[in-house]
């Protein structure tokens, strides 16, 4: 699969390869109503990785189904609907309004957005709120539900267990890791305290609370993705897959087929490739070819035998 938000609405990649190359297409995060997203700049390059702050721009469920969904039916490609809300009710209404369809194989709930009713704290950080939201969503949809978790938590196993005990049918690990970048060039003619929005002699302004849409900091706040995330994601997959009985989908910095094998060995039953596609838009077909060659070389008829192989 692709990671949510890294393959547009699907049709954009079709001039390079067909979406039926995928095991399943994961939608860009969708919400009940359209969202405009954040003002630019929205992306920042880091060493071997990136920060993004797209702000969940999307056309909303209704337009998605009217304009973009038919492509996947035509291509006979299963899809996973990634969805989000800013309050519990938005999540629930969103999930409830998605009509079951043979092509929709799962819903993936993005638990990394700021909850506006809880002071902008991200939903996915407390086991209690994860349990509550998943339980309520599950009551309103018969479609299998996968919980996509943020890595910015004290104990990801606890969060995953809460999701599973509330009825989650799978866990995606991991979402991007929150980070900031600072453009040192903004200092020219200034000094460090002014870069933080304070006048000389005053204490620098504090970093904004979580969920604030724009930092009063000269720089860039966003989710880190790409290869720097891989060891963190592998650990999350290894720890969680041993603790829960539902399938784990691995994601975080996967760039080639060797990365995929590592995620399978750590316990993932499927993987998502995201940022790698931005650097090489053929990353996904190349990974599939690489896996095929690996299977031939090792006489494997299925990759399942690799799942969890790293757990001695």
């Amino acid at each position, binding site marked *: 699969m692709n990671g949510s938000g890294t393959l547009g609405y699907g049709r954009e990649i079709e001039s390079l390869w067909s979406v039926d190359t995928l095991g399943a297409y994961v939608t860009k995060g969708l919400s009940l109503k359209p969202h405009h997203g954040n003002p*630019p700049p929205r992306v920042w*390059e880091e060493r071997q990785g990136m920060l*993004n702050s797209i702000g969940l721009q999307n056309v909303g469920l209704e337009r998605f189904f009217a304009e973009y969904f038919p492509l996947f039916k035509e291509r006979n490609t299963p899809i996973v609907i990634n969805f989000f809300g800013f309050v519990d009710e938005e999540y629930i209404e969103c999930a409830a309004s998605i009509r079951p369809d043979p092509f929709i194989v799962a819903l993936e709930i993005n638990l990394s957005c700021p909850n506006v009713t809880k002071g902008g704290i991200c939903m996915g950080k407390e086991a209690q709120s994860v349990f509550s939201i998943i339980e309520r969503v599950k009551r309103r949809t018969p479609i299998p539900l996968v919980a996509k978790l943020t890595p910015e938590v004290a104990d990801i196993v606890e969060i995953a267990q809460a999701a599973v005990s509330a009825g989650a049918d799978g866990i995606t690990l991991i979402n991007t890791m929150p980070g900031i970048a600072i453009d040192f060039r903004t200092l020219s003619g200034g000094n460090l305290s002014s870069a933080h929005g304070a006048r000389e002699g005053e204490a620098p302004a504090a970093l904004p609370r979580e969920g604030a849409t724009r930092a009063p900091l000269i720089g860039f706040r966003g989710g880190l993705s790409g290869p720097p995330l891989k060891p963190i994601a592998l650990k999350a997959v290894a720890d969680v897959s041993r603790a829960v009985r539902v399938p784990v989908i691995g994601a975080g910095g996967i760039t080639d087929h060797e990365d995929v094998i590592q995620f399978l060995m750590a316990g993932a039953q499927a993987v998502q490739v995201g940022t790698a596609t931005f650097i090489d838009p053929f990353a996904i077909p190349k990974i599939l070819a690489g896996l095929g060659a690996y299977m031939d070389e090792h006489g494997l008829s299925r990759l399942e035998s690799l799942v969890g192989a790293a757990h001695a």
Partner: protein
Amino acid sequence: MHDIEGVIRENLPLCQSFYRCKIELARPMDKVIPGQFIMLKVPSAEIFFRRPFSIYDYGKRTVTILYKTVGKGTRALASAPRKERVMVLGPLGHGFEVHRGYTPVLVAGGIGIAGLRLLWKQVKKKGCFFYGCSTDDEFALLGKITLQQPRVCTLDGSAGFCGNVIQLLEQSLHLLGERPYVYACGPQPMFASLKGLLAEKRIPCQVLVEERMACGLGLCFGCVRKTLDDREPYKRACVEGPVFDLWQISL
């Protein structure tokens, strides 16, 4: 579309911090529309994203770009030697649309000329071209484009009209002939002045914008430009752009 391997055949400074790079491709690109761009994988392990460059020229399987060194990516490209291998994805984006019955007026500021050269090749018989830059050194960017004196300007007055290209255009509006249609590429403040200048007569205008990009293919929604479309204000510079109608974007 394919990700095409290319070999750098030329990568030379034209003047201070401006370079021209010619890349010979292993296979031909699809038909190029003026205003389109390529995503170039800069040959350096330090550089993560590909970089977007306007297609300055294309022919005989060789794509030419002009660039100014502004950051890590362009500096890494500037130090790439001849024969270095690169990957090129393109042509990408929504290019210029030329409408019949108008006089094309091309307006380039500085390195913005990189995005207008191909269009000029197409319309030069009936159009006119205004070029503004900081100093006369940057006339090197004009290459084979020959302009009469009044149609060039420098901020320091070292050659041509002294001032910016929009001030030059303002002085020359009466020369533009019947039904002008402006095509522009340059820095952000240039677009704002252009909008002010063209507003009264509501002269039609398309602008080629520059945005920081990650994928260049419309996958990430990272390179958006705000438009006046209330339903979906943020449009991708890489798909809906990089050429936008001046009257539909918010500046």
